[in-house]
C-alpha cells in the first residue's frame, strides 16, 4: 500500500506530462477556442454578406406578398381595430417569412448536405453559429417589415407616430421566430421536413396573424395564442392607438423575448446534436 497521497502522485504525473509537451508522445498544447462574441460577429457578418448573393430576391417576394395581402384585405375590413390587425399582421409576416421559413430551410439544407461539418470542425461555440445565423436572418427582415408597415399605415390611414416600436418588435419577434426556424431546421430528420415545417410555420403566421382575431373560431383563436408571432403582432397593433397602453405592449414583447430565448437554447442544443453523429 502506498503512503503517498493520490493528489501528489497525480500532480507529479501532470508535471511530467507538461514537461513532455511537444516532445515524443507528449501532450501538445491546444489552439485557443474562438470566443463567443467575436465568433458570433464573424458568423453574423458572413451570413449578412450572403444576402447580396442569395437573399435579396426573396426579400422582395416577402415584401410584395405582405403588401399584396393588405391591398386584398382593404376590401374586407373597414378601418378601426381590424385594419390595425391587418397592418401589424402583414408586417410581422415578413419576419415570419424570412426568419422562420427561410432559416428553417437554410439549416435543414446545411444539415442534409453535410455543411454543418464545417462549423463542427472549428473550435466555435454552438451558440455563436445559431445566434449569428438567427441574428442575420432577423436583420434581413428589417427593410421589408418597415416598408410593409409604412405602406399599410398609409393604405389604411393609420398614424405613423409610433412606428418606432418596430425597433423593438423586429428584434424580439425576430428572435422568437428565428429561434423557432433554427430549431425546426436542425431537429427535422430530413431536409424536406425542415422545408415543410418552415412553410407551415409561415402559413400559420399568415392565417393567424393577418386575419382579424375577432372573426376566428374558438379553437383557431386558441392556436393563435400559441404562436409566438401573435404577440409581436398584438404589440405592434396596440401602438396604432393615439395613447397606447404601454404595459400591455411591453408584456407582449416580453412573451416574444422569452420564446426567443427558449427557442434559441433549443436550437443550440439541436445544433450540437446534429453536428456530432
Amino acid at each position, binding site marked *: 500500500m502506498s503512503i503517498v497521497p493520490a493528489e501528489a502522485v497525480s500532480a507529479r504525473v501532470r508535471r511530467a506530462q507538461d514537461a513532455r509537451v511537444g516532445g515524443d508522445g507528449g501532450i501538445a498544447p491546444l489552439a485557443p477556442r474562438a470566443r463567443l462574441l467575436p465568433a458570433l460577429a*464573424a458568423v453574423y*457578418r*458572413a451570413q449578412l454578406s450572403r444576402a447580396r448573393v442569395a437573399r435579396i430576391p426573396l426579400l422582395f417576394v416577402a415584401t410584395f406578398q405582405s403588401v399584396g395581402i393588405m391591398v386584398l384585405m382593404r376590401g374586407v375590413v373597414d378601418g378601426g381595430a381590424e385594419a390595425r390587425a391587418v397592418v401589424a399582421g402583414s408586417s410581422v409576416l415578413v419576419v415570419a417569412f424570412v426568419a422562420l421559413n427561410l432559416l428553417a430551410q437554410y439549416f435543414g*439544407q446545411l444539415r442534409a*448536405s453535410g455543411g454543418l461539418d464545417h462549423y*463542427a*470542425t472549428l*473550435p466555435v461555440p454552438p451558440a455563436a453559429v445559431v445566434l449569428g445565423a438567427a441574428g442575420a436572418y432577423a436583420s434581413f427582415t428589417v427593410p421589408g417589415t418597415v416598408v410593409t408597415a409604412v405602406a399599410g399605415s398609409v393604405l389604411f390611414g393609420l398614424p405613423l407616430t409610433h412606428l418606432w416600436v418596430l425597433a423593438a418588435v423586429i428584434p424580439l419577434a425576430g428572435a422568437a421566430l428565428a429561434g423557432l426556424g433554427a430549431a425546426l431546421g436542425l431537429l427535422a430528420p430530413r431536409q424536406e421536413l425542415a422545408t415543410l415545417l418552415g412553410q407551415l410555420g409561415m402559413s400559420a403566421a399568415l392565417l393567424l396573424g393577418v386575419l382579424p382575431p375577432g372573426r376566428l373560431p374558438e379553437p383557431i383563436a386558441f392556436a393563435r395564442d400559441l404562436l409566438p408571432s401573435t404577440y409581436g403582432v398584438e404589440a405592434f397593433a396596440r401602438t396604432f392607438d393615439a395613447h397606447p397602453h404601454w404595459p400591455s405592449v411591453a408584456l407582449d414583447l416580453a412573451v416574444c423575448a422569452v420564446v426567443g430565448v427558449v427557442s434559441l437554447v433549443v436550437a443550440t442544443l439541436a445544433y450540437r446534436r446534429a453536428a456530432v453523429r
Partner: protein
Amino acid sequence: MSGRPWNAPRPGTRPGDPLGSSLVSTVCVVRDLVKTYPAARARRGLPETPEVRANDGVGLHVGRGEIFGLLGPNGAGKSTLVRQLTGLMRPDSGTVDVLGHDLVRHPERASRLIGYLGQESTALDELTVALAAETTGRLRGLGARRARAERDTVLEELGLTGLAGRPLKKLSGGQRRLACFAATLVGERPVLVLDEPTTGMDPVARRAVWAAVDRRRAEHEATVLLVTHNVIEAETVLDRVAVLERGKVIACDTPAGLKERVAGEVRVELVWRERAPLDVPEVAALRASAQDSGRRWVLRLAPDEARAAVAAVTGGEAFSALDDFTLATPSLEDVYLALGGHATKGLVKA
C-alpha cells in the same frame, strides 16, 4: 524499409533529427477502430440496407511531418475513418490519439488540433473567397487583424488573390475546392486532414496545394493525413500510404515499398476494336487472367509471360482486332488489386 515495423513512421523525418532518434514522435495513433452503420429498414422508394461495418479494426501510426495517405475505392471506409479522427463521429470501439489527446473521449479537442477539409463546401458556397477564408480563421480563434493578414497571405500563396471578391458558388469546381483549401489553412494547425483535396483541380491548382503542404511541413513540421482515390497522386506526394478495402487496412508502407510487392510483374493493357477475338487460342488463354471491362483488358504478368502475350496479340489474326496496347511497370492500382482489392472502378488515375 523491411527492417522496421510495417506501420511505423519513416525515420529521420524531423529536420532537427537527421538520425531518426525521434522515431516514436507519433502524431496520430489509431487502434482497433470499429464503426458500424446500423441496418436501415426499407422505406417507400428506398430498399432495405443491411448493417455496414465501415471501419473494421483499423489501426494507424502517423509520424510527425509525414504526408500520410488513405487510399481505397469509394466505400472502403476512408471518409468514415477521417470523420472519427476529426471528432465528427464517435467510433463504436477503439482509440484515436492525436498529439497525446484522446479524441474518442474528448472529440471537441479535434478542432483545436486539426485543420479539416471536408468534401462539402455548402457552408461557404455563398461567401466570397476572401470572406470564407477570413471567417474560417476567426472561427478558428484568430483575432480580426490576424485573420485578415493570414487570409491575404494564404490567398496570395495559392494564387487566389484575383478571385478574392468572387462568391464560391460562381467558381469552377476546382477553384472552389482551392478556396476551401485556403480556408483550411487560415489559422494554423499542427495536423491537416484533407479529404480528397484536389478533386476537379487543374495541374496548376494541384501544384499550389502540394507546394503549400510542403511549405507547412518544412516550416512547422505539419503532419498531413490525406484521403485519396487517385493512385498517381498517391505515388507522387505521399510518404506512406495505408490501403483500405472494406473497412480494413490491407497494407501500409511507402508507395515504393508497396510497389516492390508486385515488382516482378508487368502490367499489360489491351484495348480491342470491337470485342476480343476469343477464337484465337492464345487470346482465349489470356482471358482467364485478365481484368475484363468490356473492350479493355488489364493483365498482370511475369515479364516472360508478358512478352509471349504481346507477341501473340501483335501477330496474325489477333492484331487486326487490337486497337491499342500498353506495357507498363505496376502502379499502386496493381498493388491494390494484387493485395486482393475487389473494386476495379473505384480508383482513379489522373
